[in-house]
């Protein structure tokens, strides 16, 4: 499949944004519990003592999510009709994703406005009974949106690689991983007890999990059989079928969109680059930051930069390596 820049930007950027929103949503939902004197400051101390930072993090997540969604519009031939995509939620994962994306903005906006207004008016933050509910809705909406994004791809039977059972968990893990990197970078700007220690541990754990899922995915798609023209035209029983003349001399939409071979030629190198940038470098940086808290801030920002670059390579490969069944008609 052709790796389209707009879709890669969309899935990576909005994935990171939703991952951050998911973690913040959970944090806010559990805020009452975590900031209670008993369990208190160790886990959520940063969010408890710096409520204005919370609004800032939500806003940065908002920028990532919105930038990603705007990129996705770039993929459309008729972007001015994008609103129509919200109508077919009964059958279409793309439509469901659009609906969850729009709905998730509501609790996010409510929380951002609430945090800003409490900051301006000086009232104690997060005092309302509705706030934990908004947090829970934000976490749920973010998770659901990424889940739907993953299902857009995993529901496509003609793309065998995407039918792999690791596609959906992979999307969810990488989204939360990206969100963790983003929050770690933001939290490292104002180190207080709590998050700047919890987040690197999460980065370490998630790099292990996510890289494991990706390696297993790559191993599985390498084992998939090559497309067979005999099966495609239904005459495999007669013998070996070989295309000796394509229907067109030049490239057409199908061969352009679904006959992308560059990635598979360089798959090994690109996979190594993705693993290193996305997982190895951020993981090592997180470990160093845990050992040497003084380097926390540069480590966190470097990890975010490397992680984002790695996720872009990973996502490029996700599209570029996947083979579409229709190419069997063109297989020689």
């Amino acid at each position, binding site marked *: *499949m052709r790796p389209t820049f707009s879709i890669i930007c969309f899935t990576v950027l909005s994935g990171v944004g939703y991952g951050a929103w998911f973690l913040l949503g959970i944090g806010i939902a559990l805020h009452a519990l975590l900031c209670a004197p008993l369990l208190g400051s160790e886990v959520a101390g940063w969010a408890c003592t710096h409520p204005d930072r919370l609004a800032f993090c939500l806003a940065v997540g908002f920028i990532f999510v919105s930038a990603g969604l705007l990129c996705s519009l770039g*993929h*459309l*031939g*008729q*972007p001015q*009709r*994008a609103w*129509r*995509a*919200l*109508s*077919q939620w*009964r*059958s*279409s*994962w*793309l*439509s469901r994703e*659009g609906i969850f994306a729009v709905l998730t903005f509501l609790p996010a906006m409510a929380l951002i406005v609430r945090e800003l207004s409490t900051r301006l008016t000086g009232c104690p933050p997060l005092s309302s009974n509705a706030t934990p509910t908004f947090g829970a809705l934000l976490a749920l909406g973010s998770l659901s949106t990424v889940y739907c994004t993953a299902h*857009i791809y995993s*529901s*496509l*039977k*003609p*793309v065998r690689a995407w039918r792999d059972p690791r596609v959906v968990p992979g999307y969810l893990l990488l989204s939360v991983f990206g969100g963790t990197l983003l929050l770690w970078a933001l939290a490292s700007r104002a180190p207080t007890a709590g998050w700047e220690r919890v987040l690197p541990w999460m980065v370490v754990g998630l790099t292990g999990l996510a890289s494991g899922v990706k390696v297993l995915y790559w191993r599985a798609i390498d084992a998939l059989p090559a497309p*067979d*023209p*005999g*099966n*495609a*035209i*239904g*005459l495999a029983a*007669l*013998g*070996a*079928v*070989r*295309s*000796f*003349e*394509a*229907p*067109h001399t*030049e*490239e*057409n*939409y*199908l061969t352009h*969109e*679904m006959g992308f071979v560059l990635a598979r030629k360089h798959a090994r190198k690109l996979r190594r680059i993705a693993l290193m940038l996305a997982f190895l470098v951020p993981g090592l940086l997180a470990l160093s930051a845990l050992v040497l808290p003084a380097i926390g801030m540069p480590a966190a920002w470097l990890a975010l930069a490397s992680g984002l670059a790695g996720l872009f390579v990973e996502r490029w490969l996700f599209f570029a390596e996947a083979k*579409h*069944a*229709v190419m069997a*008609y*063109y297989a020689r």
Partner: protein
Amino acid sequence: MTSLPPPATKKLGLVIDLDTCVGCHACAVACKEWNDGGDFGPLPDADPYGAEPHGVWFNRVHSYAVEPGMGNGESGMGRASLRGTPDAASTIPHSPFPLPGAQALTVHFPRSCLHCETPACVTVCPTGASYKRAEDGIVLVDADKCIGCQLCSWACPYGAREYSAARGTMQKCTLCVDRIYNETLEEIDRQPACVMACPTRARHFGDLGDADSKVSKLVAEREGYALMPEFGYAPVNRYLPPRPRRGGCGDADPVSARESSRSGAEILDPAQLPGVLRWLDRVLSR
């Protein structure tokens, strides 16, 4: 509405005879011409007279070589060139695949929308632009609703949908819905353009939901098959497989072989005859 309608009794579709298709592309050209000016057109081309013409066609004709008895992955070309001169036992001396005792087969394969009964291209559509008609099962795209996300083309394993960059929307075979119900046309002309154009009558149009229709009987008689049923999209169109090939020089004709053995007739080695007489022998042996 991209949810599928309840299963209809009427299933309009095509039956394509791979035995008689000669790969002339007349169906593809006739389709392009009709639909460029039809209700679902235009089908604009980029660089139509330049070095790299590019545009939407609803119908594409592939050409395949089928090499009997060979495992996948071997082309047979290497073997042919190694052998140098054609084998005397070869039944097609000038074929690039001189396999003794068996003939390589050329199959021309027109590929277009199969108007599936449960098409994923319809259900993945987020806008309702892709739909399956409840009354006759034709799968269509409403160009006024399509946002050009191209997800439907990804969902189709048959490559039936092509995106028009010029129009920003997806396009596909309409089964010439603007012809087959068009009362301004003579009744005999109310068939898809590809069917009308086919010089070998390799394309047939009709109701495959009606077991008594001409096309259904043809499918039953010739053991027509659906493409890649494993996807579960239940294509309506059927392909008729190539008929078994006659052996070279009539030697595989069971009737004449039986007759000659019964009467104890002389055995003619057609390979010894000059070209014209060999041809005459073949024609008379039919």
